[in-house]
Structure formats: C-alpha cells, structure tokens
C-alpha cells in the first residue's frame, strides 16, 4: 500500500464504525461438535478474521445437549451456535455472513459486488440443499440406490467445477486469491467427502474429472484458517464407524 493511501487523519480513525468496533471486541463463543461441517464453517470464518473465541464441544452423539445450546437455539436445537456478547446466532451460513459483517476490517469473506454475492449464496444453497444430500445418500444407502446417488453427486461436482472456474477467475480459490464464502461452504465438507470416498470406495473430487476442484481441495485444506479445524480423515473415519454403529444399534435420538 503506498504512503498516500495508508495515511489516515486522526478524525477518520474514530469514524462512524465505533459501534461495530466495540462489538468486535465483545466475547465470542462457539457451541459445536468437531465432526460437523457446519461448525467447521463458523470456525474458519472466525479464523479468517483472527477472532479469539471460546469453543464448547457439545456431546451430540451421547444425546447430551447443553442447557446453553437448548436456550440459544430453541427452534432447531442444533450446532453451530455463535454467541457474541451472549447473543446467539444460528445456522452456519448466517453465522459466516454475520462474522464477515461484524469484523469488517478483516479479510472479506463474501464478495462486495451484490451480484457476485448473490451467485455465491446461490451456489452455497445448491451445495447444502441439493449436492451434499446426494453424497450422504450414497454413503448411507446401499446397492443401486447408493450407485445412483453417487452418480448424481458426480454430475453435481461437474457443475461445481464450472462454478469454480467462473468464480475463481484463474486464481486459487472460489473467493479469488484468498478463501471466501464458497470455499468455506464446500471446503467444510472435505473431511467427510474423504471419509466417504474411502468407506464407499468412490472418487468424488477426482483429479481426472474435476481437476480444478482437486487442486483446490489441497490448497483449501492447507490454508492457515482451515488446517486446525478440518479433522483428519483417519480421525473422522473412526468417528464415522462409531456413528454408523450407533445408528444401526439403537433408536436414534431425535
């Protein structure tokens, strides 16, 4: 940044954003569970902004939701919940957007252009509502149903490969040179994608079929905001085996 741009007058240092600046210093807590891609999203967003936060692990597999979780998210009773100055924000993508807006001085997560933002939101919704359910279905079902689900997931990945080309404009990430909203939306699923690839013996993000996403997956996983919160494939694989046995062995707790 050249000298002229980096100069700020004393008045401008105390400009309009005093309320946001104050909010940005309030305590932050995340209620989560480590295998959840949705929790991972919240944590990556906070990491991008270098926000210090307290993390509370919820025992969801054991069916022991904390009182704080039940109080903070009474409608859905789900993680993640972000508590900022004790006020709860739920739903991973809403949290990511919130973090982006509150800590506006940090690197941008969502694009600034309204149309690009809308496209980012569109693809994130596609990933969550259409694409990832096919992957899960491939994993949890068997035989023909599983095969069809994985085939649909493959088709979806071709669309996402195309979306990546358009959004990245030749750079490393959906967000450009730095990870952004769509990187977080898709990348948060990478640990489970790798587990499912291993367990179901399929290749989803495939070097031949989706070369750009394949490279992106490596770059994303290595990013400083991501590497400590994306679980290792081995650790998550063990958890997945436990989850399946719980699902098969007992009546699932709703």
């Amino acid at each position: 940044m050249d000298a002229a741009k980096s100069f700020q007058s004393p008045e401008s240092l105390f400009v309009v954003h005093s309320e946001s600046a104050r909010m940005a210093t309030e305590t932050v807590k995340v209620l989560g569970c480590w295998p959840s891609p949705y929790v991972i999203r919240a944590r990556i967003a906070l990491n991008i902004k270098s926000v210090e936060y307290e993390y509370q692990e919820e025992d969801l597999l054991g069916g022991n939701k904390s009182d704080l979780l039940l109080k903070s998210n009474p409608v859905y009773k789900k993680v993640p919940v972000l508590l900022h100055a004790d006020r709860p924000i739920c739903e991973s993508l809403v949290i990511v957007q919130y973090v982006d807006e509150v800590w506006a001085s940090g690197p941008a997560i969502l694009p600034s252009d309204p149309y690009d933002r809308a496209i980012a939101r569109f693809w994130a919704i596609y990933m969550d509502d259409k694409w990832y359910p096919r992957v899960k279905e491939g994993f949890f079902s068997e035989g023909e149903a599983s095969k069809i689900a994985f085939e649909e997931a493959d088709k979806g990945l071709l669309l996402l490969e195309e979306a990546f080309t358009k959004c990245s404009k030749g750079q490393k990430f959906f967000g450009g040179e730095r990870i952004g909203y769509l990187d977080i939306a898709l990348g948060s699923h990478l640990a489970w994608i790798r587990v499912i690839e291993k367990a179901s013996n399929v290749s989803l993000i495939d070097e031949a079929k989706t070369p750009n996403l394949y490279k992106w997956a490596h770059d994303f996983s290595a990013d400083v905001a991501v590497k400590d919160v994306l679980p290792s494939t081995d650790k998550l694989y063990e958890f997945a085996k436990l989850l399946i046995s719980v699902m098969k062995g007992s009546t699932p707790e709703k």
Partner: protein
Amino acid sequence: MEKKRDESSSVKLVGFWVSPFVHRVRWALKFKGIEYEYIEEDIFNKTPLLSELNPLYQKVPVLVHDGKPLSDSSIILEYVDQKWKPNPLLPDDPYERAQAHLWARFADEKVLESAWLALCSEGKTQERAVKQAIENLEKVEEKLKGKRFFGGDKIGHVDLMMGFVSYMLPVWEEVAGVKILDPLKFPAVAAWTNNFLNHEAIKAEYLPSRAETVAYFQWRRKELIPVYASYSRWSNK
C-alpha cells in the same frame, strides 16, 4: 396491468401468476419503486426462456438485471435491497440482519412447508402437518407481539418472506378444509395480516383474485395428494 416496456428494460421478472415466491419479489420491487418488465411463464408448459435463465432448477421467480439472471426469492430480495439502497428492507445492524435471515428461513422451511403439506395431504398426515403449522405459527405470534411488522414500525425483509401467511394461507386452509391461523389464538399474526395487506406497496401490487387462487389450489391439492402420500419421509415427520 403491467406497463409496456421495450426490449432494453434493465429489470425483468419472470414469474408465475399464483406463486407466492414471485409475489415477494413483486412487493420488493414495488417497495423500492423499481420499474420492471413482468414476463409470465406457465410453469406447466415451460418455455426455453426458463431453461436459459435458470438452467439448474428451471423455476420462477427469476430476476434479470442488465442481462444477468438471479433465482431464488430470498437471494433476489437481498440483491434488490443491496443494489437499490433507498428504503432498506434489511436492517443495518449485523445482529438484526442475521435474525432477519433466520426468520426468513423459518418462513420457508417451517411455516410454508408445514402449511403446504397440510394442503397436499389428508388423514393422519394432514393432522400432523396442521399441528406442526400451528406450532410454527405460535413462534411467529411471539415474535410479532407488540409490533406492527416484523421489522418494527416499518415493513421489512421478513414481512415480505412471511407475506404468504396473509393471503395465501387462508386460501390453503379453505381448500384443505383445515384451520391453522385462528385469529383468536393468534391475535398478533391476525393484526399483522391486516397491517401487511393494507400497506401501500402491498395493496398497490398485483395479487390474483381469491376465486382464481382457490380454484388453482383445489386442482393442485387433488394432483398432489397421491404424490405426497408416496413420500415415506413425509409420513415419518
């Protein structure tokens, strides 16, 4: 009657006359004072236009601004609010904005979904859907207590997203032969319904007649009951 626009209209909306998702966008555009060309698409006889503008889902509404298409009513509403700044629909404060997004999701994922299921089912499935819809409305009632609109004194994003409750839900109730929005049980929602429908931007915008809407959904209910009955996940909810 829509104003006649030439081909160079910078804002176009592709819609279907009775879709509540399309109505939301029309209200938003009216509220912002944006002139647009409306293009009716018969969703039961789709033209190539819809495949071109929304290849993934081929659904309405689609907003086309300066040649660039956008789909999904909540995405369109947010885009419109950001692109045309006067008369904001979403709050400035990030926390309030997050709450608005959450309530917008609640409107579609819970309120609309349960009411729609009540419309498209019968017997035990319908009973469960009605019960769910009432529970969802209880949360809405709580949210609206002491307020004219979800946004407070002024209409906002959540009001538009919940707008179907004011005029579409009563139609679905009549067609399905159920009662969900009882004004005695839900006085705040009932009051909001009046405030909403009497708001100048809502009143001035096109809404199909009740008779036409009833006839349409009577037909849809008949068509959809067997379809939804075969989805085991619905009966397990």
